[in-house]
């Protein structure tokens, strides 16, 4: 019988949850790397037992861990993320120029085809790649060297490159997103990049329609339609039908269009999920009700999914990398909260139950569907 493995990064370690295809009983393994911040861990699509984890600490810096046995054992690999050449400066919170400084790896995106190749999105914003299973990392510096680079500035959480999407139909095409610079696309395997932010409007920047400066929180795609992108921006839920050339708002009837994660149903490319958050200064669900919203129309028309989720006095947040979807039928939807709960739905969002509920604050959730 098939099964699923849920990979959870938290403020104080990593946890691996496993279940068979019924997804009603869960085995919890962890904490791995206890006491360290685990911003993200993810398995290789090409070799699911190969997994990579970003382990960091304010005291001891960045580590990358690699597992070849599905997360049972781990080995530290390379942790040197050196910017290519003289890194230069970007805009700081006070408007001055600030040197690019590596802080941590936010997101690890393993190659779709090669288990030894992984992309790393880091703070201060840059994209790195390893082709030797994490032993060494090289910056794809064409992104950071984009002419707009000196104007990029950090969001409240730091200037992080948090989203990396690999186009399954075109190995040369990569999408990334940076808070708060915006979305960028490469059509030459990461050598050169251009902003893809036309149609975004952000009231918090001097020119609301500027080429860069938008606080993109997350982008998602369905692998069968890699030209269709869905975005949760700081405010606004957006979609693009032309690989980011233009964006249209699809917030529709959401109670708030602020939020962090966005994801796509495994088998229905027009079915998408978000978790509305009240506002940028009140990072919790509106009215104390934790609701996932689902659109079966690719946006604009949204329904609240509440069955099994707390509908009073709930003031957790759901961070940008903390939602994932398995590919069973019907697909499972998973998300983790800053309160340490991980909720799962076995029926594409119709009903929910916690699969673990007292973890440290959850930073990321990934899921692997196993044969």
């Amino acid at each position, binding site marked *: 019988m098939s099964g699923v493995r849920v990979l959870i990064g938290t403020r104080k370690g990593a946890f691996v949850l496993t279940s068979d295809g019924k997804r009603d009983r869960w085995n919890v393994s962890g904490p791995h790397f206890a006491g360290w911040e685990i911003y993200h861990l993810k398995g290789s699509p090409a070799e699911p037992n190969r997994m990579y984890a970003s382990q960091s600490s*304010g005291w001891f*810096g960045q580590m990358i861990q690699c597992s070849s046995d599905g997360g049972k054992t781990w080995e530290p690999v390379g942790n040197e993320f050196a*910017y290519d050449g003289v890194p230069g400066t970007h805009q700081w919170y006070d408007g001055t120029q600030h040197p690019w400084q590596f802080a941590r790896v936010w997101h690890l995106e393993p190659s779709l085809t090669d288990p030894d190749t992984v992309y790393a999105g880091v703070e201060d914003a840059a994209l790195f790649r390893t082709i030797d299973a994490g032993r060494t990392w090289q910056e794809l510096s064409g992104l950071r060297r984009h002419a707009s680079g000196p104007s990029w500035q950090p969001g409240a959480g730091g200037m992080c490159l948090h989203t990396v999407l690999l186009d399954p139909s075109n190995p040369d095409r990569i999408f990334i997103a940076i808070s708060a610079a915006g979305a960028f696309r490469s059509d030459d395997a990461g050598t050169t990049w251009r902003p893809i932010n036309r149609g975004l409007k952000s009231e918090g920047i001097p020119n609301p329609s500027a080429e860069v400066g938008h606080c993109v929180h997350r982008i998602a795609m369905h692998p069968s339609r890699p030209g269709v992108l869905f975005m949760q921006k700081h405010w606004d839920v957006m979609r693009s039908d032309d690989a980011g050339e233009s964006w249209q708002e699809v917030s529709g009837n959401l109670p708030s269009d602020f939020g962090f994660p966005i994801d796509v149903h495994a088998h229905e490319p027009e079915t998408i999920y978000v978790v509305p958050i009240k506002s940028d200064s009140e990072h919790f669900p509106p009215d104390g009700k934790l609701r996932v919203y689902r659109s079966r129309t690719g946006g604009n028309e949204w329904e609240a999914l509440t069955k099994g989720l707390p509908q009073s006095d709930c003031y957790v947040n759901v961070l940008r990398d903390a939602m994932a979807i398995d590919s069973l039928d019907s697909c499972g939807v998973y998300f983790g909260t800053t309160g340490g709960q991980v909720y799962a739905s076995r029926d594409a969002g119709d009903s929910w139950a916690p699969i673990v509920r007292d973890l440290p604050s959850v930073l990321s959730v990934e899921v692997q569907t196993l044969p």
Partner: protein
Amino acid sequence: MIRVVLPAHLRTLARVGEEVELELEGPATLRSVLDALEGGYPVLRGTIRDHVTGQRRPFLRFFACEQDLTHDPPDDPLPGAVATGAEPFLVVGAMAGG
């Protein structure tokens, strides 16, 4: 022989006990001890000193013989008791965070 005491998280990473013993060829200084430590335990590279700048990470301190050596010049000799192994060289994580 130099004795080095590491904070708990670095012991876990390096898979060592409370103390690490190092042999130095030259004089015992902050730099030579850290070089030998990283040479013997490459997994610690980048965790005590930044890879790029070589600077001490801000939340780490170096103590020995009840002295704070953190801000001493990196090539100054360490106390004789550290050089002989009578006293350990301590890498200490600052008390901060949650």
